[in-house]
């Protein structure tokens, strides 16, 4: 029973959530990266422009590398980086 229950949770909740977090983290990483490094805006302003459904996803600026990390523990993580003359791209 427990195995079936765990499987159901895995199938019905964990996998779709992981996919959603992966897409949300990528979108957030890319959008925040462009907003901070191309548009020269403050992180808080940049975050306020993003969908509220992505609020649980954490964001960290790695300023020394002009890079953005967006993640939700155990569920997903994506990075975007700025390159002079080319803007931001996902990694």
């Amino acid at each position, binding site marked *: 029973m427990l195995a079936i229950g765990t499987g159901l949770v895995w199938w019905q909740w964990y996998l779709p959530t992981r996919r*959603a977090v992966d*897409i949300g983290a990528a979108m957030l990483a890319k959008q925040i990266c462009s907003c901070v490094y*191309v*548009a020269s805006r403050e992180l808080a302003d940049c975050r306020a*422009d993003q969908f*509220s459904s992505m609020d649980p996803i954490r964001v960290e600026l790695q300023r020394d590398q002009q890079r953005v990390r967006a993640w939700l523990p155990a569920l997903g993580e994506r990075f975007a980086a700025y390159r002079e003359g080319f803007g931001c*791209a*996902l990694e």
Partner: protein
Amino acid sequence: MPHRLGHRRRCAWLLAAAIFVAAPAAAGELVPLPSHPEALPWPTERWPEGSLPKDLDRAAFDLHLAELFGPKGRGGFQDTRALLVVQGGRIVFERYAEGFGRDSRFQSWSMAKSVTNALTGVLVRQGRLDVAAPAAVPQWSGPDDPRSGITLAHLLEMRSGLDNADGFGTGEDFRFAFISRLLFGEGSRSPAQYAAAVPLDHPVGSHWEYSTGTSILIAALCGQMIGGGTAGTRDFLRHELFQPIGMHSALPEFAPSGEFLGGVFVHATARDWARFGYLYLRDGTWNGRRILPQGWVDYARTPNPAENNRIYGAHFWVNEEPASDNQWKPLPGAPQSVFMAEGANFQMVAIVPTKDLVAVRLGEAQGTPFPEIKEPFGSLIAAFPDRSAP
């Protein structure tokens, strides 16, 4: 009887399409594009400035301006951050929300598609691409592959029949819509490949379906033709498009695999987005130099002949009445002659030949139903007087 009429109309469209492909310059009844005023400098380095016209409908203008810069709030609408109007070659109105200004670069969403139209146009002018030729996508090259019949024109007109529509407007959760997977999910590392690796869901050429993947595919085809990878495309865009028209702030972004993203993400100031619109208002010419081939702008602003389309040309929107209930008129309140680059959150560069005008609106509009945010902008444009083509 109605069915027969429909069939006849389709035949007429197909015939028109055949003629059109052969002679793009001879397209339908389009309002002529006005010329740049003599003796006025082109806005390459500096935008000439003027004042609002005396015959402006001032009450209507003020009303819609207030709506566009209305109360803000996250997820709210009327969050306009830049509004700029050019008439007769001069900036006659310009306003920014607090925290933004002339030097602020705004990231486009789908307005980038119209930049891809320009990129393609330059390559066509140089004789390096032919819109009537099948698109050189390796995945489609098999002799029995029905996708081998897809031309560059089909892609530009969003009627390839490929099953890669963005997936909005069908009730699909945005997180799992094709565009999300393409840009941010499993397609994000190589979106052009991801967009090409789909079957047809309609016969080639018959059905219009808005697809960011298709724009990225075109950008990749352009990049292939230009060569030199990411830097090659970036430099080509700079030297052949952005620099000649003074669009110095323009910054296109690229996929991890190196291709210009083409369907989204070009950054530029409001003044530079206005320069982009001005290039199209002036028929693809700039200060005596032809940037886009003869007839290219008319091609972009002529509704393409897909059976379910009246509002889309070739990577530009056209302000006609939609062909079905699940489509919207692109800019209610504004004249029919308007054609436009448009992006999510209601970013718009509207080109208005009958008023010799370009209007730019940038900002946010998350979650706002289309007509609510569009009508004030369309009506603001309508407040400007007509100017006949010289």
